[in-house]
């Protein structure tokens, strides 16, 4: 597609970046900012994971052993908030920063100074959120979905901090999304038409529009929570003419597109990795693009499937059931396309491919349980049980997070200039794969047998499975430390990576040397 211009190598020497900490604080470079996003999200992954360990330790056996219920509720709440807003979303933004300019043939992101700010306000937001745990009365304890009036009249004093931190996270996401949109629309290399963009770029473009559409809705929701709690408004209080169910409508109007925000970029990643290791072009590129767009559009008209038990009219229940079921069609198309890409390929199974295959299988299992949850009469039994917990952990952990792991292994040689340790990578994969299923699969059974979610204690018939789940949880937690070792080892050195370490990889990023030069394409490559 293009050849590397020697100008890029010169840039490396002409760069006047500050040394030490100031380089990172003042940087406007998409690679530096991407790295900071990725490191930050991994740190948050470990902190949120530590909270999950507290949850699983308490649930290891029936009875209250380790933490009292109020603190347990803070753990489930902050675990959810950190994993969603601190781990998964920043990881994708980090990947977007690193990869989009390289993939579309641009030198950097379109709005580099804003890029710096959109990262640096994130640590502030999470410092505020985490510090609220140490306040008198504790941090947020009303679930990551913060249903009113539990999050208003009955909430702890720290709720203002929670609201403030969510506002900052929202601003960060919107800034990041605007940057992605402007970069993709304006900075593509000559010849790179929309239908020639890599799917990762496509899925991120659509994700960015979703973010710009729904993050303001989240901001409105938390603002109403704030004024209901502190300024005597009654948006969500029947006593003042409001309605607590209104909260859920507004929250899920944000919340449902949000879950697609956390999975669409994964689809892009898998659509890059599966063809690379099958040594065969992606099957049905254009249907992949259309499927992504359909999923994004449908995501705006399915929100109330989270609310079937709130007492909606039957016509509304039917509408949301049908729309939700419909989403499985474009999602199915994607899975079929990946399988067709693998079909009659020439496959090898390096770590990124292993994670990608696990993604396809386990994400699909999460999709099946999602389809089951869409069936309203059955949802009355599944709703708010561990079946739901199993469902969204399959799509978020073995879905979103597995795809992020796959991406990290796939592009690490490009980022660091060294090959990662394949043996350790495979160990990380197999340890994660087995433990994650011991962790989440039995949760389906627990939910079907009737265990509600968000409880610190449970009836005796749930004891055996909970013990198994906790053991799986501890093992999965420990397994992630292997990943930390792999990344540190790879950043420090090892076998030199060639420009294109994967035989079947396609895309402009592989035309650049490894590690990629500080500034990406300084003269735009020609795309034919």
């Amino acid at each position, binding site marked *: 597609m293009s050849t590397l211009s020697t100008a890029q190598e010169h840039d490396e020497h002409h760069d006047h970046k500050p040394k030490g900490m100031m380089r990172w604080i003042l940087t406007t470079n998409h690679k530096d900012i991407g790295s900071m996003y990725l490191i930050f999200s991994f740190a948050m992954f470990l902190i949120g994971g530590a909270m999950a360990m507290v949850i699983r330790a308490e649930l290891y056996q029936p009875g209250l052993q380790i933490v009292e219920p109020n603190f347990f509720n803070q753990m489930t709440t902050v675990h959810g908030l950190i994993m969603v807003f601190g781990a998964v979303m920043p990881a994708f933004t980090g990947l977007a920063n690193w990869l989009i300019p390289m993939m579309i043939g641009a030198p950097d992101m379109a709005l580099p100074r804003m890029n710096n700010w959109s990262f640096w306000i994130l640590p502030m937001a999470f410092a505020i959120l985490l510090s609220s745990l140490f306040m008198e009365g504790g941090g947020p304890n009303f679930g990551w979905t913060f*249903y009113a009036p539990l999050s208003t009249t009955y909430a702890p004093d720290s709720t203002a901090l929670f609201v403030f931190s969510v506002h900052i996270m929202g601003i960060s996401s919107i800034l990041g999304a605007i940057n992605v949109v402007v970069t993709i629309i304006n900075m593509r290399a000559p010849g790179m038409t929309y239908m020639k963009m890599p799917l990762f770029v496509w899925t991120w473009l659509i994700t960015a529009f979703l973010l710009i559409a729904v993050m303001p809705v989240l901001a409105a929701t938390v603002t109403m929570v704030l004024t209901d709690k502190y300024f005597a408004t009654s948006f969500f209080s029947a006593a003042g003419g409001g309605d607590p169910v209104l909260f859920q409508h507004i929250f899920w109007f944000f919340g449902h597109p949000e879950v697609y925000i956390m999975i669409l970029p994964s689809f892009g990643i898998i659509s890059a990795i599966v063809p690379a290791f099958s040594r065969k072009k992606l099957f049905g590129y254009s249907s992949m693009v259309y499927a992504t767009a359909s999923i994004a559009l449908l995501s705006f008209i399915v929100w109330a499937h989270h609310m079937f038990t709130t007492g909606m009219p039957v016509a509304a229940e039917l509408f949301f059931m049908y729309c939700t079921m419909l989403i499985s069609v474009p999602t199915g198309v994607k899975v079929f396309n990946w399988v067709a890409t693998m079909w009659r390929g020439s496959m090898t199974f390096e770590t990124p491919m292993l994670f990608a295959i696990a993604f396809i299988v386990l994400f699909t299992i999460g999709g099946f349980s999602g389809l089951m949850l869409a069936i309203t009469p059955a949802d009355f039994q599944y709703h708010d049980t561990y079946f739901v917990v199993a469902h969204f952990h399959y799509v978020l952990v073995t879905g979103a997070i597995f795809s992020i792991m796959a991406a990290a292994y796939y592009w690490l040689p490009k980022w660091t200039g060294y090959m990662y340790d394949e043996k350790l990578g495979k160990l990380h994969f197999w340890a994660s794969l087995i433990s994650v299923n011991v962790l989440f699969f039995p949760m389906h059974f627990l939910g079907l047998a009737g265990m*509600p979610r*968000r409880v610190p204690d449970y009836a005796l018939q749930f004891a055996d499975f909970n013990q198994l789940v906790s053991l799986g949880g501890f093992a999965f937690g420990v397994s992630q430390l292997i990943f930390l070792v792999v990344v540190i080892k790879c950043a420090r050195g090892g076998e030199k990576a060639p420009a294109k370490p994967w035989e079947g990889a396609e895309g402009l990023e592989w035309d650049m040397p490894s590690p990629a030069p500080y500034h990406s394409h300084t003269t735009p490559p020609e795309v034919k």
Partner: protein
Amino acid sequence: MRIKIIIIAVLGMISSVLSATPSNINMTRGVTDISHRVYDLHMTILIICCLIGVVVFGAMFYAIVKHRKSQGAVAAQFHESTKVEIIWTVIPFLILIGMAVPATKTLIEMEDNSKSDITIKVTGSQWKWHYEYFDQGFGFYSLLATPAEQFDNLDGKNTDVAKGEHYLLEVDKPLVLPIGKKIRFLVTADDVIHSWWVPAFAVKQDANPGFINEAWTIINEPGIYRGQCAELCGKDHGYMPVVVKAVTQDEYAVWLDEQKQSVIQAKKDAEQALASTLTMEESMTLGESLYITRCAACHQPNGAGIPGVFPALKNSPMILNDRAAHIDIVVNGKAGTAMQAFKGQLTAKEIAAIVTYERNAWGHDTGDVIQVSDVDAKGAK
């Protein structure tokens, strides 16, 4: 070699899952016609999903085994086929229609709340249920019956306390319902959102404060059916069970008579209590036992509360200095906070005992003995 290890690992996993509780891994079929239909719907969709999974994953793993580079596979060149893509868009769509038809029928029937025989108002509050027999004019609260020492092991002292058979799923007074009658539930809440759930009836209905939701059931078999609050409702969300005792219609009639008698008896007791004088000793004993079951969840057994969440009673200026305000807050609650009004929940005598206990426990030395008439004056009966 590696394949063998994986197979052994998978078999190990499956056997450990099966050795857990094999009878307890699926949705209950329940004891109503609706719950049977919900169960059948669940099983149908589950089986369809499994079949799709077998086909899709089967094709994928076939490719993984056969089309690998180490087997000498050479990549084919095809990368699109409109025909195939239309087929795998249309077939799932048809399967979905096949699922939607029975689901729609069941849902419409579930939402038909008309022509009920009996109406029960179910009210959730932190952390108990109140059942009101609408047509009969009486009601009662239903609280967790599992003693605290069975679940509270935070200080490690109760490690050896055995847990009962129905640990966390037992209440002091279950909801009693007759079989074979259409029972309509009117579900609401006093404070935050709760959700009333009995798996055996396939009824789960959110209890929203300020609004009333409807649900219904016709129970086919007598028995005791257990469920829990399903919506996070604060600290003791996990300690809010639902227990329904379904009896024959004759037994139900007898039970209703007993209840009406006890309502009349309770009124007589209240009048007697108003005339009587409570002693310190009697009030402290009664007050302590009531405090532990009704107050200690928030204010803690030692009266210290949870700082920043639930206020401390120990050394509270209101308790030490303002007797009238103390009685008032227990009787009428405090609007806009988690402090409930206890006047409908406890008798005037019981409230008097609790107030007396709080005024003389934990080193308090007011020496006050609150009389039933003091509480009655604030509106409690």
